[in-house]
């Protein structure tokens, strides 16, 4: 995740980037991750696919390429009914990196 690229994508508007980071870590990601794990436990592959799709879009928004790829693999695994848990583990690892990067954007000392 390259902060300068992200900042350029929102016209250099630092408060907008921070608002996006906050929405991601506090609303969208917790909701989609909860949906993903609930659906995986219940064996509801359609819901897994939908959650992975949403997470892919979310990761893409922050240009987190590895998380995008992992979400895409998870989406495909759910659609093709192949082994899910490895794809979930991989995505979880990749998302943790994105989450840490977003939290650093939200730190009080972070600035444009």
């Amino acid at each position: 995740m390259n902060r300068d690229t992200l900042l350029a994508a929102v016209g250099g508007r630092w408060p907008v980037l921070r608002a996006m980071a906050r929405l991601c870590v506090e609303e969208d990601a917790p909701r989609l991750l909860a949906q993903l794990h609930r659906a995986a436990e219940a064996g509801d592959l359609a819901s897994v696919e939908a959650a992975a799709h949403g997470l892919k879009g979310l990761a893409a928004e922050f240009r987190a390429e590895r998380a995008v790829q992992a979400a895409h693999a998870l989406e495909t695994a759910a659609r093709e009914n192949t082994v899910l848990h490895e794809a979930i583990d991989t995505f979880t690892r990749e998302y943790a990196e994105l989450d840490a990067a977003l939290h650093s954007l939200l730190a009080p000392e972070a600035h444009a």
Partner: protein
Amino acid sequence: MSTLGPPKGRILIGEDVRTLSCRMQDALEQCGYTVELAADGEEVLRKVRAKAPDLLILDIMMPRQHGIAVLKQLRADPVTNKIGVLMCTARDTPADAAVCRELGVAELLIKPVGTAILVAKVEEYFSRRDRAASALGLRVAAVSSPPFRQTLADALGRYTLWGTRGSTPVPGARFLRHGGNTSCMSIECNGETVILDAGTGIRELGLELTREDCRKLHLFITHTHWDHIQGFPFFTPAYVPGFDIAIYGAEGFGKDLRSVFRGQLDREYFPVQMEDMNSQIVFETLHENPMQAGSARVHWEFAQHPGATVGYKVEIAGRKIAWVPDNEFLQGYCGAPEALTRDHPLVVPYGKMIDFLSDADIVIHEAQYTPEEYPGKMRWGHSSVANAAVLMKLAGVKRWLITHHDPMHDDAFLETKLNVTRRILERIGHSIQVSHAYDGLTEYF
């Protein structure tokens, strides 16, 4: 804040991921468009029918009705079948592209859609539409139709939570997500600013206000405990000539409002005094209810809290926003929440507050203690989660933002506590949108 002046066109964004819609909304508003959001398929259908936007930007994979299903319904309805649509999706399949073409989608955008591309595609859509209208000798709808914000009911406003912590500010990494500033929120609409409480959150609001045009400020104080007034000495507009600040509060049992504010600026506590504040400051005791503050009608009601404490309900642009950060509903009650009804003897004394909240569009109210903590905190003036949930149910509240977080509750604890709150609401059978307020949260209405 969005661009003022005549709107270029009205756009509805149907997108369930708020992170994405936030960026899209900001980019389009910067260009002069008026933007509304819808978070699921059903909300899109409802808002298209109610607001008749010029353009719909629609995600394909959406909860509560898939984007394609939504589009088919819009095309089947003679009232909505002409709406311009840009589809937006992370799922790039030939099948989707074919369906979109069949349904008259102007453009299929593949996520992530860069801001420049989004704006270019939207501008292109409106330009094409206007050229077509001119060629047919039609008046261009975006120019000839009434501006979106022409009436008070459609005016664009926003509220921001600047401080959501109770009792005392809390700095530190464990409190980052929710923030550590004490109570303050603002409501901005029609070029006016209503401020509720002056905890440490008001400092940051003050810095923002000095960069804006609004010079008339209405500051309503729920009560004069430290965490609701301690930010005022750091409120920059108070020192700036040209600002006109009216401060309102309930008649207390001891000192009046002016004395309390002046007192915390005594030389023993602070290097500058109220006499050094160069703005025009007036203090007013609450009498009329509701009272008028600019175009806002402000209702107030006494809350259960030590000292003279009130909650406010600000009615502006057709919205009612309630702010009750300190209120111990059902003081001393530790029993099961589902057992209580409106006519229960324990509930009856709180009828006024229930009625007060019953017509609010959004209620910002505390729920400071978990049911386990509450027995040790009775009569401190704050509700248990369970009792606050009962209040929301009895008042029929549909949207609840929980504020005044306990300084002992860090981010991890608060996340767990929110889950507890949701389970209690499920248990008492009250369907409600509930979330935790955090410092910096802004919502438009």
